[in-house]
């Protein structure tokens, strides 16, 4: 029982990011970063970039393919550093997430999400925690309210970054029962500067 539940929390059979993986990070890194990621249920690619004249702000965009559900996930977010970076560094995100469901009855979904993230540590290694909340409106009569907690570690060696993130939470749906969600990904990124 316990191993199964632990496994479920790590690599849940029903995934979906419902917001970017990469943007859920406390410290906004100066410059640009291209990253690819993969997990048991999805693969994706993302781009993070700080503003030219204000490294405390940035944007991020991701494109993912859900292998299990055969759904395209797209997300983009604006990021703000909250306070001065230090041993504990905080950021906020406001973004949009969308889905393209090509099979069966074609469907589309889009909705906003917000997140608060904290990174504990430095540029080289940090422990990351984030909470995400969103709304998703489907063209076929469905509202979902995804709520997630994301935890993980980020490491940087030179221009290369490595992240291992896990995410768990629920989707709340009006007048229906909750859906438990869990997922994990490994991300490898390349910065355009050290």
């Amino acid at each position, binding site marked *: *029982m316990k191993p199964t539940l632990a496994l479920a929390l790590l690599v849940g059979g*029903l995934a979906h990011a419902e917001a970017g993986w990469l943007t859920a990070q406390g410290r906004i890194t100066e410059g640009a970063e291209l990253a690819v990621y993969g997990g048991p249920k999805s693969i994706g690619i993302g781009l993070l970039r700080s503003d030219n004249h204000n490294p405390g702000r940035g944007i991020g965009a991701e494109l993912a393919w859900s292998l299990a559900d*055969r759904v395209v996930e797209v997300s983009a977010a604006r990021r703000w550093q909250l306070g001065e970076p230090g041993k504990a560094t905080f950021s906020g995100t406001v973004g949009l997430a969308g889905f393209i469901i*090509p099979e069966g009855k074609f469907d589309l979904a889009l909705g906003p999400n917000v997140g608060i993230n904290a990174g504990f540590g430095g540029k080289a290694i940090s422990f990351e925690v984030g909470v995400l909340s969103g709304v*998703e409106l489907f063209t076929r009569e469905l509202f979902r309210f995804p709520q997630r907690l994301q935890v993980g570690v980020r490491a940087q060696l030179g221009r290369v970054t490595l992240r291992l993130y896990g995410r768990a939470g629920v*989707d709340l749906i009006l*007048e229906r*029962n909750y*859906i438990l969600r869990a997922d994990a990904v490994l991300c490898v990124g390349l910065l355009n500067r050290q």
Partner: protein
Amino acid sequence: MWRFAPLLLLTGCGLASPRSGEVLSPGVAEAVFEHRGFGTDLLHTRIVFPARDDGTPRTGPFPAVVFIQGGLVPESRYRWWAEALAREGYVVALPTHAFDLAIFTIDSGSEARKLLVAPPPSLLTGLVDPNRVAVGGHSLGGVVAAKLSLQGGFAALLFEASLPDAADERGLSSLKVPSMSLAGSNDCSAALADVTEGAKSFASPTALVVLEGVTHYQFTDSEKEDVARNCAAGVDLQTAHARIVAASKAFLDAAMSARPNVGADALSAVPGSTVTTR
């Protein structure tokens, strides 16, 4: 050909909606459907149905049951029950759940019902009477089945070795469909006293049927878990299965008839049964 492989990966092959199934035994076949639920999720439901020798469905419409697996028990372990009911003219849907835990996605059962009553072009077309779809479950699956029944759309509720969530007791006390709690007297997981107490939550018409000597896992295809924990059965597995099917059929036939009831007389005729109705 292979240059189209990336495109195939991105668009998939379309959702699996079979026109025929694999014959399990004379008169019964099985097919696995893919269907979309909760917006993005790709769900899989095993359908066991009355069939011809070539695996195509017999002419419907038939009554149906959406059956929810017990916790950590693969849905395939209820295929024997589904097969027996299909032989009696029922379509049985067994939705699959991540890690065999229906509590992860409770509403997979509702999505399975949607698949039955509004199917894509497939063997399910015209196969199910949309007004005669029951929901049932074993153990933890019974808890989930009760939650599904409260959402409406189901014509009957069947509990197997289970008791409802306390949060649902109020809703179940005003549920407008027939219900049956089918219990085993030798159940070492869902104690008979607890099941009996839980059955008090159900609104009339309802039946509590206790099968003498039956254990918790005799509701599945094997009693190995009972044996492992020295939980002794009073009847052999084959006998237990025959009585479970007889009671299930007696209840479902009556609950989804023109005058819905629990089928008290037919239930009392099941060997080794003690029936309490109200």
